[in-house]
């Protein structure tokens, strides 16, 4: 898969397992923080009736951070949870996607994360599918 959209790769990084992301990025480039990892809350909104007027459902924890690599590129991350390393890795990865290393990291990190997330989701979908009810009619009332 080619990674052209920042929106796409940031989503993959945010949803990645922090330990898995760290394992895929063993060597971090030199960087400084424009915004040190900061834990906060995001208010999750939903809609009445699924599609109607918005209401506040409750908050979720989130960690954000912004880094600058020594050679210039800036990276941002907003990730669910309270893991400072997760946000740092994601922000560095975001910055690196603006460098010539983007193609290599796309296949070496993002593809792997994306594939694993897809597989996990597929497994859940298939477990759900196994619990789908097949109705069959025994006797119709009007025939009795």
């Amino acid at each position: 898969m080619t990674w052209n959209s920042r929106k796409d790769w940031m989503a993959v990084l945010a949803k990645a397992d922090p330990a898995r992301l760290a394992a895929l990025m063993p060597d971090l480039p030199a960087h400084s923080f424009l915004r040190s990892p900061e834990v906060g809350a995001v208010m999750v909104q939903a809609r009445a009736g699924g599609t109607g007027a918005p209401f506040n459902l409750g908050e979720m924890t989130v960690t954000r951070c912004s880094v600058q690599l020594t050679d210039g590129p800036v990276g941002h991350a907003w990730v669910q949870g309270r893991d400072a390393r997760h946000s740092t890795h994601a922000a560095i990865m975001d910055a690196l996607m603006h460098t010539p290393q983007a193609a290599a990291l796309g296949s070496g990190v993002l593809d792997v994360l994306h594939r694993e997330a897809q597989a996990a989701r597929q497994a859940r979908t298939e477990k759900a599918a196994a619990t789908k009810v097949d109705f069959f009619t025994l006797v119709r009332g009007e025939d009795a």
Partner: protein
Amino acid sequence: MYVAVKGGERAIDNAHAWLAEERRGDPSVPELSVAQIREQMRLAVNRVMAEGSLFDPDLAALAIKQSRGDLIEAVFLLRAYRTTLPRLASSHPVDTGAMAVDRRISATFKDLPGGQVLGPTFDYTHRLLDFKLAAEGTVPPAPQTATTAAPVPHVMDILNRDGLIEAATPDNTLPPDLTREPMELPAARALRLQAITRGDEGFILSMAYSTQRGYGRTHAFVGELRIGHVAVEVDIPELGFAVEIGEIELSECETVNQFSGSRTQPAQFTRGYGLVFGQSERKAIAMSLVDRALRWQELGEDFTGAPAQDEEFVLMHADNVQATGFLEHIKLPHYVDFQAELELVRRLRADAIALQEAAE
């Protein structure tokens, strides 16, 4: 007379030390890890997240461990932690129509697109204690059926198409937030939904049950109940576009309720809505019934005096942290108040006795 007293510090320290020891229990029994609670007590974790109004399974599991399994105490701990967090943003409204469903059932249509998917449910279990669980063992993996993930449409869309049910028309009003502004009555539906989704499950359940027994009856059918994961998308100010920052598990219930109609308006079903963090289907169903009962005015129904129709009664008593705080504070020292009462009763008695003696 006011008497200032100090003291009890050593007693309090020792009480906390004993609490820590009791929390640990018998040291010959292995200690619970937070990860074990998160994974194996997941429905308790979900309840603490829903009523604590903060989606973070690790924190909720930690709160349960710290509170020795007292879930209201755990909710209190999570709420207290939440207040220390800066509010970084509000998300886009989540799209439950795009949910990756683990469970999705309808009580109104047997054959619906996407089918009846039972998911990991307690329904159809026999409620017999399973003594096999008393021993440790491995669980065989759940069966899988090859399929391709496809979006699962909302059941309401089917009724909507024929105009048989009231529409939930999107708008983008900024919703009120009771964690920032004190609740004012009458409350908009958005505020009511926020209050109910973080309300005590037992209270919401009882309110909903009371409507089924006739106190503000609304004849509810579960049009659809779905549980699964949705992505949360947030506008990132430094980028100028929205990004998915994670996924949360939600339970959603939509009810199809008694219809209303008039000479000018053809009869139409009405709806109630429930949406709760985590797999919390009892709460989601109860929420949708209470939401519907509270809509009596908007739908031109009569107020029958039922508690579930009474917005003040429901919203002001749904929060278990508030309720517990006020309830339990009466066990704290009220020595001075009580002295005053005691004095008064003694004086009244003395007056009465004096009168009696004078009469004799």
